[in-house]
């Protein structure tokens, strides 16, 4: 059964053009679904509609098969973690967690047990008497998580919960969240604009643009078989190299192909590994970035086309003219409407 289902969902703010129009979407029970997209794509709006914090303009929202029309946010059995944590500043950590449980009329003993358990789980046992202002950013994040977990919801909603943390803490809490998801076995819906977060944590990624789904699939699929050029260019750093097939003379002939694409990290420089059917390109290095374990090159292969190359653990190349190669199965093709053409290339892996 779908944990969340949208039917012909439309949302417009005041009298502006709708941010989401006639959206049909199902989020699978027990999945860690990531709503990914650039700012303004409607991902947060979608999450807030699920939470009941935002009124939809038209359409139906189901949670656990139940129509959410006129169901108050507090009655939807969901927990939400906000970007700025939204901890109650005048309450202690204990009261922050307890507030929701009290309102849900959980018996006193049960409340005490749950708070003790959850504080233990997120490592807050020694901080229960503190107020949020006396906690570090990472600790506040943990309180927000603890508050969400203690309610034992059927659905976790997270709205960019890591964006206020520094890079190191973010990486740490990311793995914590994966652990948490595996332990709780509940549906997670996670909003982010960060593709690393999406790829690392999600079991399903939904890439949104202008309120429309661009691609919905597993992280592997969305990375290897992007449904269209937008997805191909959104995922990956640097993004997939995509350009007009007409600018190449040696590309494999694929019916209807207008654009060709390949990932920077799939390019190799070792000529001896080249096989029949592989694409060979050459050009001048415009820029070289040494990033420790990897090296990025910006190469101009013809007056209008620049290719990004990413190599790992190799000797840096000197500036000048280079030749590079891509395996046939790593090529993607897109038609004149920028949609993927399945040509069987990747199946050969």
């Amino acid at each position, binding site marked *: 059964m779908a944990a969340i289902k949208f039917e012909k969902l439309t949302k417009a703010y005041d009298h502006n053009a709708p941010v989401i129009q006639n959206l049909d979407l199902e989020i699978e029970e027990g999945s860690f679904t990531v709503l990914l997209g650039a700012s303004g794509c409607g991902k947060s709006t979608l999450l807030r509609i699920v*939470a*009941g*914090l935002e009124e939809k303009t038209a359409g139906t929202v189901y949670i656990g098969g139940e129509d959410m029309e006129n169901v*108050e*946010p*507090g*009655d939807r059995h*969901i*927990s*939400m973690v*906000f*970007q*700025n944590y*939204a*901890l*109650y*500043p*005048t*309450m202690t950590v204990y009261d922050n967690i307890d*507030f*929701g449980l009290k*309102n*849900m009329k959980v018996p006193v003993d049960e409340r005490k047990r749950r708070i003790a358990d959850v504080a233990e789980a997120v490592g807050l046992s020694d901080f229960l008497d503190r107020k*949020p*202002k006396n906690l570090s950013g990472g600790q506040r994040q943990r309180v927000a998580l603890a508050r969400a977990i203690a*309610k034992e919801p059927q659905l976790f909603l997270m709205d960019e919960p890591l964006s206020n943390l520094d890079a190191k803490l973010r990486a740490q809490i990311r793995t914590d969240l994966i652990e948490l998801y595996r332990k709780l076995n509940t549906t997670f819906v996670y909003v982010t604009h960060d593709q690393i977060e999406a790829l690392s944590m999600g079991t399903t990624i939904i890439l949104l643009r202008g309120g429309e789904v661009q691609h919905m699939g597993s992280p592997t699929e969305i990375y290897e078989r992007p449904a269209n050029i937008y997805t191909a260019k959104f995922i990956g750093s640097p993004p997939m190299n995509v350009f007009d097939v007409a600018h190449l003379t040696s590309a494999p002939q694929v019916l209807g192909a207008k654009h060709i694409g390949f990932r920077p990290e799939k390019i190799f420089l070792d000529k001896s590994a080249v096989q029949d059917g592989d694409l060979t390109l050459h050009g001048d290095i415009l820029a070289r970035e040494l990033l420790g374990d990897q090296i990025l090159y910006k190469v101009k292969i013809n007056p209008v086309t620049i290719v990004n190359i990413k190599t790992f653990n190799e000797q840096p190349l000197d500036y000048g003219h280079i030749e590079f190669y891509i395996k046939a199965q790593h090529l993607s093709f897109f038609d004149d409407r920028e949609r993927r053409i399945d040509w069987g290339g990747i199946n050969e892996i």
Partner: protein
Amino acid sequence: MNILKKICKTIVNILLVLIFVTPFYWMFLTAFKTISQTIQMPPLFYVLDPQWSNFSQVFEKIPLLHMFKNSVLISAGILLCQAITVIPAAYAFARYKFAGSKVLFGLTLITMMIPSQLIFLPVYLLLSKLGLINTYASMILPSACSAFAIFMLRQTFMQIPEELVEAARLDKASELKIMLKIMLPIARPTVTTLALLTFISSWNDYFWPLVLTTNDTVRTLPLGISMLKAVDGAVMPYHIIMAGNVLLVIPIIIAFICAQKQIIQAFTYVGEK
């Protein structure tokens, strides 16, 4: 340079303190003088034989305890009424967009511009037709709501991040609970300041009690103090008036000391992330 700056700063600070403290000092001083000392030239800046009897004279001349009780009851009544009217109004103006909310808020603000001298007659007529003259109700009702307090509290509520309300809604809290348990504690510095300002103005109010009373039943302390002016001889009894004033301001000073910390917070509060 730095030392010079510090010295200037200290001098200005001392001057400021003097400006504010001197009237109080003069009041306390005069309250302990004899009548001849009050009119002595050049004036005395200290007294060696404090006249405690000035205070007992205050008690003799006016029903001080009765008026003190009136002042307490009326000020407390006004505070209570304002808490009931102002907090929900400010919360609604801050959080809800309803039809006419802007117009209503504008009307609320406009009431601040109407001078009380303009409305005391209609208010008097209204209360007298209701048969409320010389009752506590007549003293409390005209101040039962405050546009200024609504405005101030609304600003504070608006500064509180929307996510807190949303988090509380997801925590299954009712609107009343959100207002009382989440918003009000955060707005506490503002509420305390408003309460103190309201208390001071209702405690010191002279005009409304003067207009709305015809006998001593519900008269308050400021009216009593002005009664002390009734002259026995040729000289105004300043020493007794000042003794009355000392008794009048003591509760205010106590209230101020209690609320001091909160008031400073109210003017420095910047919200919490």
